């Protein structure tokens, strides 16, 4: 059986299972399937599924850019961890719920008299958004380090990615202990929901789509934009060519390594938003206990873009599948022990990987490219 066939089969089987459970649930509302179905289409479940999908979907989009360009970024988990922590740290250092003016008012002392440079017009930036910017920056820095190791120093991508994960797994709780005396930070500040007037009054859809966490909006915009950039712009063409046939791209005169650097930085950018959404977007704190609050989402994101056939829309759908399971788990704890639901997403990922396998891995993924000219 050919890979694409297997994927189509897997997707169809998933849809059939979902449809079967739904039909059974509609027919027998009092059965377990009925309870699962009506919980799954409940407004609050869809809302929280979307919110839980944000870190996975954004990271998956970033990861698929990197992999399309020929760099397998196993370190996504580490990028999520570092950005989740850095976002909280920056927001807290700048001061919880306040805002920071830009450009800043500078006051200095010269020989007894005080001078003040006041730009007059100041842009007030909420610290929670600066925190998110900090998280994105931290993630992109780590992604850049990863890119340098893989591209400049020709390191093995799997080992370097693993290192990024392990460094972040140690660094975030370490820094948290230095700053707060414990591996998890206290609650600092969290993003409030944005309500779009009028539209949010539409029944059912309104509260889900137009009274949501801003991170959900960012995700919903990112998916089509990422698809458009990848499939309809010349940069997207370069990224795909760099993964499939770097030599051809080089011949045309495009610097393959530069494209790969850009793609890895994009993966850092999206993972950075995802990580900040995880900490500041929902709880407003960073949990560094055990596997940290990221808890394997970076790896689930990799499975999501594989399942989604390197298509941002597919990656989003797969992410929603995983986050929907998670949201159901929170609501259906009475049906089975918690651990059964906690295990479920990971088992689904393994099953998905078995059905989808390595699929259409870009031709040159995992390989170094050296231009013949330099």
């Amino acid at each position: 059986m050919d890979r694409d066939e297997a994927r189509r089969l897997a997707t169809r089987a998933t849809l059939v299972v979902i449809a079967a459970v739904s039909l059974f649930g509609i027919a027998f509302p009092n059965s377990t399937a009925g309870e699962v179905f009506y919980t799954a289409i409940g407004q609050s479940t869809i809302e929280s599924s979307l919110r839980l999908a944000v870190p996975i979907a954004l990271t998956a989009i970033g990861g698929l850019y990197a992999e399309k360009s020929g760099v397998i970024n196993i370190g996504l988990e580490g990028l999520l961890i570092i950005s989740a922590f850095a976002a909280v740290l920056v927001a807290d250092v700048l001061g919880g719920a306040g805002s920071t003016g830009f450009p800043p008012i500078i006051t200095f002392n010269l020989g007894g008299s005080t001078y003040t440079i006041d730009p007059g017009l100041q842009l007030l930036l909420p610290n929670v958004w600066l925190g998110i910017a900090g998280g994105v920056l931290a993630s992109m820095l780590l992604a850049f380090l990863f890119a340098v190791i893989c591209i400049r120093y020709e390191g093995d991508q799997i080992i370097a990615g693993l290192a990024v994960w392990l460094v972040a797994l140690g660094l975030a709780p370490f820094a948290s202990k230095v700053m707060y005396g414990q591996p998890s930070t206290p609650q600092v500040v969290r993003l409030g929901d944005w309500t779009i007037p009028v539209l949010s009054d539409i029944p059912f859809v309104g509260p889900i789509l137009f009274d949501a966490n801003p991170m959900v909006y960012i995700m919903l915009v990112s998916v089509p934009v990422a698809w458009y950039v990848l499939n309809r712009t010349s940069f997207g063409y370069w990224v795909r060519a760099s993964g499939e046939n770097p030599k051809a791209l080089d011949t045309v005169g495009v610097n393959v390594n530069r494209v790969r650097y850009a793609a890895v930085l994009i993966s850092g950018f999206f993972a950075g938003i995802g990580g900040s959404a995880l900490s500041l977007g929902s709880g407003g704190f960073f949990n560094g206990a055990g596997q940290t609050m990221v808890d394997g989402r970076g790896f689930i994101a990799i499975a999501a873009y594989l399942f989604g056939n390197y298509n941002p829309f597919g990656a989003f759908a797969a992410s929603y599948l995983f986050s929907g399971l998670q949201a159901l788990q929170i609501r259906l704890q009475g049906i089975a022990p918690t651990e059964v639901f906690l295990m479920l997403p990971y088992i689904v990922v393994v099953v998905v990987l078995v059905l989808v396998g390595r699929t259409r891995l870009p031709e040159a993924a995992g390989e170094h490219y050296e231009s013949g000219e330099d």
Partner: protein
Amino acid sequence: MSWLRDVLERLVGASGAERAVISLAALALSILVGGVIVFLSGLGAACETGANYHLAIPLPGSFEILLFDGRLSMFGYKSCYDPINVYEKLFVGAIGGLPWESGWQPTNFSMEVFLQRATLLLFTGLSVAVAFRAGLFNIGTQGQMIWGALVSAVTVLFVADFAPAGLAGTAILLPLALFSGAVAGGIWGAIPGALKAYADANEVITTIMLNFVAIYGTTLLVSEFFQDPQSAGGTQTRMVPANSLIPSIPFGFQGTRFSILALVLALVLALVVYFVLWGTSFGFDVRTSGLQPEAATYAGVNAERTIVRSMTISGALGGIAGALWVLLANGRFLTGGEVPSLGFDGITVSVLAGNNPLGVIFGSVLFGVLKSGGNALNFQTDVPPELVSILSGLIILFVAMPEFFRLIGRSMGVGDKSGAAVATDGGEDDG
């Protein structure tokens, strides 16, 4: 300095030795970067006065050669942590002090922790190394350990009711514990192996996912079936009987946390793994499919079967580590705890050792020191012991970039032979 260059050149010339040089350089560099991280984080930490930097070479007795004594600051900020002191605590504290200090005994508590961790890490390191040699990245040692630990604890608890008391019981229970752990870990390792072999599922991701499944699965099983009725909190089994533990011979440590016997077993197993990999035709198949999968298949190696077998052996080694974790560290299976870090550190140990079973011995000793020293760090300084995890990640990071060290080596004028980069395709070729 020219003799030094000669020595370096000769070392760098040999591919296996080059790996050793790169590992050592990576180690040194990660310690350096770790020190910078400690210093910088000391700027952010809150303290009354800055750390006193006391730089001295300790000598027997209370003598020392003083190098520097005072405070360091950066932009007017004083750092609260002194990296030199931190590393001294880390490395000296790991064995409970310097051997020539009065009152130091080879059987002190820190020494016990150090040797216990080294023993466990030897198994997890071997587990990763075997898979690595076959071109497989087993990140699931952690999960294999957890299953090995649970199954061996439950088996011993079950059989103990029928087993004779005393040493006769030990003769039955101890091998049984290790065997059941190996079987459970082996099965858990065979799963991603089979998925890789027959469905081409990426083993890096499946093993990580199966780690999570193992954590939640064992928690579920313990809380549903094997929960210790007497435990107030925490999901854990009953204590295994004392006669199933590894006897503390030939000479006694105070606690029950370590036995020389376990270390000897681990060392013997390292030699066995080395012999299997380099002395048997199965080992040859494993190594060739790790280096050149296509060539191996062409030469008649059954690729699928080799993958499943290597993952099974890898998992079994992880499972034995889990059984020993029950027998040495806790006396029972408990959820949570330090199993995850032992699994991950196995990866670092193996990568650092160039996936050579004999190198793993040195790697596990080093990490045993770091683990035990982490305790000393926790009790004697304000620096969070998570520093050890950062060091472990940094080591892998630097080992991943051999080109970097080659460039440095080249700029120093040392040999220009490019050996094999550390890679997921079976690691170095020491042909």
